[in-house]
């Protein structure tokens, strides 16, 4: 055994994982001590094994995986770009539907109160007619369609709905996502 002291853990770490970009000088002791050489070699081998495994795992993925991944990204990107255009178009449409003059009419108190009163009267009349059995409760097309659809399919739709809600929630967090210049 070499007369000088064995390498400490920190020195072994520094041999295998140097913090700087330049190679670290080999300590005299290491050149002569088989025990320390083995410790360094074991740590290096473990790390290289892991690095090779991780790298190989990704590099060996079939091209279908990469095609599918790229296709998924591009689909999301295209739909996102489409949604952004739709939203822009809708905003313009809303502005066009309510030009200044129309907005002025809506702000008039008498017209606003009359509209509210008419709406309340209509709701009241419909409720009375339904309670007396004159008008059957109408099924919307969506309700009819759901009733005809087997439960399994509804579950699948629910799943899709949950996934899309998830995506929307993620998107809203992304909207505020700041690509920081620093961490």
């Amino acid at each position, binding site marked *: 055994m070499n007369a000088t002291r064995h390498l400490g853990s*920190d020195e072994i*770490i520094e041999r295998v994982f140097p913090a700087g970009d330049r190679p670290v000088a080999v300590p005299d002791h290491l050149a002569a001590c088989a025990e320390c050489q083995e410790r360094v070699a074991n740590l290096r081998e473990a*790390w290289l*094994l892991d690095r090779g495994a991780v790298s190989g795992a*990704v590099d060996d*993925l079939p091209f279908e995986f990469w095609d599918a*991944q790229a296709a998924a990204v591009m689909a999301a990107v295209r739909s996102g770009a489409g949604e952004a255009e739709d939203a822009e178009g809708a905003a313009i449409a809303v502005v066009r539907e309510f030009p200044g003059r129309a907005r002025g009419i809506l702000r008039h108190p008498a017209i606003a109160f009359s509209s509210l009163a008419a709406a309340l009267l209509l709701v009241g009349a419909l409720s009375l007619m339904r309670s007396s059995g004159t008008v059957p409760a109408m099924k919307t097309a969506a309700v009819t369609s759901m009733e005809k659809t087997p439960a399994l399919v509804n579950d699948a739709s629910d799943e899709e709905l949950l996934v899309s809600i998830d995506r929307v929630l993620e998107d809203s967090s*992304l909207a505020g996502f700041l*690509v920081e210049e620093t961490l």
Partner: protein
Amino acid sequence: MSDDEHMGKRERESEILSRVVAGDVDAFEYFVVTYQKRITRFVYTLLRNPADADGVAQDVFIKAFRALPEFKGQSAFETWLTRIAINAVRDHVRRRRPVVSFSELHASEDDDGPDLPAAFDPADGTSPERDLFSRDIRHRIAEALVGLSPRQRAVFVMKHYEEKSIAEIGEATGLDEGTIKSHLFRAARKLRARLEDLR
């Protein structure tokens, strides 16, 4: 890659970026195809979960696309993408953290064999003992890495798995040299502690 090649690539990417920002969404596919392997590898090295790695890698590109107007071209696109990947992994780790610890996860998974799908499981198959040794080491290193802060982990992976220089790591993370070295040393020390009994 030589300096000229770097410059050429940067100019070409700058031209494609202008097209994307101008509305040519399909041109963005160049960046996906060029960097998907590198970003997936980086994310997988950090997360050690194939499904999560695929999902987060996809998110990285989608986020990059949305943030393209903010890209000033001060760094290379790849560096900017790496920065987005680090943030995406950090967000992913924060969202997932309380569910189950890595040790618990692997303790239960080990009973049923490897947790990675075949395509992501790189056991070399030379011998069952070697495969077992390989998996054991990988799990221990993965545990040690998962035990680091996302920032330490990113710095360590960039340095020792991707062989980035300190300057490149600084550009991607915004950290100064001293902080990077400190992160590297602490990360290596934890790794060493996990592998102490290998000798």
